[in-house]
């Protein structure tokens, strides 16, 4: 019998990061997902159906808007906003949900399971499940259910079952644990519709592939508007799906600098933040490790217990980061930084008042980092910032600061 481990190891790795660390019960389903996805990718009918849904149901392409008043306000680079917030359901998450929803149908799975932090992925999954006639169960930390109540009601209206998770820090990580337990139990009938570039291979690859349309569109749009490539890209990074979605089409363009913005929370000590890659700024506790199926940078104790995290933004409040981001950081291809809760709130207010856009608190982190840097940039430099979602869901949190 031939020994295949080395061949398998090649796949699903971004440098040393990524891989597939799951209980044996999930290995065959992951292999099936990988195989079905490869077939779907080669199938023109699949791509045509996805394109049609993205266009007619979700509202693609999204605009690349020149933010003239924000540009003037910050007084530096020319700023363009990629308006993923205008998509159906209010965030980029629907791109991936439509793709994976079609994969679930292709695999003959009648039920989808999802985790959600801010509720945007949960809402997008519930929406796609309704559209495709699948049943849907969403796991959500009880703290997140409290701070994103509007999205809980939206999911229920769409026919999804929302199950509160009362373990650990009652946020995204705990919701993923519970979704994995459901999947391992109902693996023959259910597809786990993972919402970010996290988890075991092939998830980080599949989610990135379904999100990379953001950057592909933006690349074309900026060349039409400015006749050249941008100098800087900005995106927030929780798991990192909207960031990888924007970055991916530009990875080969060495002149394009990329900044991923993590949640600095309320402090730099372990438990106070969700900055996994911004260690250079003094955030403590991230080391390579294995969490929820993948080898990547993880906030943890010296003994390998996963740390609790904090962010005002539920979608960034997570102890690990997508493995491809860990690799981009290690190579220096993208830079990762973190902004604090109050800076993100201020940035949301600034974007609302200069451009008439209320961003999701997640996206507001990217806006805050841009606000630090844009004034120091030359006036002919070009920036694209991904407004990954809109802020309606955050009105309860934001209204405390108005």
């Amino acid at each position: 019998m031939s020994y295949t481990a080395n061949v398998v190891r090649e796949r699903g790795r971004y440098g040393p990061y990524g891989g597939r660390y799951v209980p044996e019960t999930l290995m065959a389903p992951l292999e099936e997902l990988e195989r079905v996805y490869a077939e779907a990718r080669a199938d023109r009918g699949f791509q045509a159906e996805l394109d049609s849904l993205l266009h007619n149901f979700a509202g693609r392409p999204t605009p690349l808007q020149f933010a003239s008043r924000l540009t003037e306000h910050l007084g530096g680079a020319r700023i363009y906003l990629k308006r993923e917030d205008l998509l159906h359901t209010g965030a980029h998450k629907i791109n991936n949900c439509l793709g994976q929803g079609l994969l679930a149908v292709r695999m003959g799975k009648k039920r989808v399971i999802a985790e959600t932090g801010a509720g945007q992925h949960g809402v997008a999954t519930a929406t796609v499940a309704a559209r495709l006639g699948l049943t849907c169960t969403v796991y959500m930390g009880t703290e997140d259910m409290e701070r994103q109540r509007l999205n809980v009601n939206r999911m229920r209206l769409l026919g999804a079952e929302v199950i509160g998770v009362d373990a650990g820090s009652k946020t995204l990580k705990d919701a993923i644990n519970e979704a994995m337990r459901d999947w391992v139990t109902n693996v023959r009938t259910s597809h786990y519709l993972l919402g970010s570039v996290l988890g075991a291979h092939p998830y980080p690859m599949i989610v990135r592939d379904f999100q990379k349309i953001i950057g592909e569109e933006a690349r074309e749009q900026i060349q039409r508007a400015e006749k050249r490539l941008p100098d800087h890209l900005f995106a927030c990074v929780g798991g990192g799906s909207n960031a990888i979605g924007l970055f991916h089409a530009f990875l080969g363009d060495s002149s394009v600098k990329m900044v991923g913005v993590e949640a600095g929370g309320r402090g730099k000590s372990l438990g106070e933040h969700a900055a996994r890659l911004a260690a250079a700024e003094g955030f403590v506790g991230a080391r390579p490790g294995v969490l929820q199926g993948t080898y990547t940078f993880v906030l943890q104790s010296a003994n390998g217990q996963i740390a609790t995290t904090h962010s005002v933004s539920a979608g960034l409040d997570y102890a690990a980061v997508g493995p491809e981001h860990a690799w981009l950081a290690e190579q220096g291809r993208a830079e990762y930084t973190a902004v604090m809760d109050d800076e993100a709130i201020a940035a949301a207010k600034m974007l609302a008042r200069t451009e008439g856009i209320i961003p999701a608190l997640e996206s507001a982190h990217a806006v805050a980092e841009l606000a630090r840097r844009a004034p120091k940039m030359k006036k002919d430099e070009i920036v694209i910032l991904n407004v990954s979602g809109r802020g309606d869901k955050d009105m309860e949190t934001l209204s405390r600061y108005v």
Partner: protein
Amino acid sequence: MSDAAIPKPTSGTQTFAGKTGGRIGRRFRELSEAGELGLIAYITAGDPSLDATGKIVLAAAEAGADVIELGVPFSDPVADGPTIQRASERAVRGGTTLAGVIELVRSLRMHTQVPLVLFSYFNPILQMGIEKFAETASAAGADGVLATDLTPEEADEYRTALHARDLDTIFLVAPTSTDTRLALIAECSTGFLYLISRTGVTGERASLPEDLPALARRVRRFTKLPLAVGFGISSPEHVSVLGGIADAAVVGSALVAEIEKAATVNAAAGAVADRIRALKRAAREGISKRSA
């Protein structure tokens, strides 16, 4: 993750890793000669304290447990049901670490020769360092390791390090495992194979799955290693029919639940010992391997 040289896989027919025969292989040979189903007891280490776990393990060994799995508590136990999740949470909160569990093994070895398996999620092992883990666990007197979220594909370095220290590498097989996967897992396992009886997390269930005998037969086609069946095994009734199917039964959540209920450490040790005696009786008096 180093790209250490890939070791030549050990033969699937080898039942122990040690040069002179490990405690696990020896125990399974004794059971086989007696035609008796083995009983493997899982206990979450550090729940409610490592001292308590030490007493409970000795009571379990005394009561007839053939192998004891010491669960290393982890903050995010994705493969576990509510009972072991709660135990894990109590143990982590109490400050239990992998190093502490290995220390417990060392102190247990002064009192018992029962085979001891460390049952852990991969991250604590990775953070200690795979080499250092293998060295200290082996020196302390552990016999084998099972990492719940580690499959052979990601385990080259781990297997090399553990086998170099005569530690058995026990991997899981599941109802969803394809024949290709069963062959790979069998090739990479030593000591015994752990068969997950059903898709799902750990925890007590009313009955055994109907397709378990067929599943066990399918797994046997790929290995001569002893086969232990776990997940959802809790009662003497379950154990009494397993003799015809497997070489050992793993009981976990039912024991952990006894520890959770007990008011004192002595009561916990007593309750676990009572459970094990009842299960062991069922293992001896039920369908034996010989009659099957």
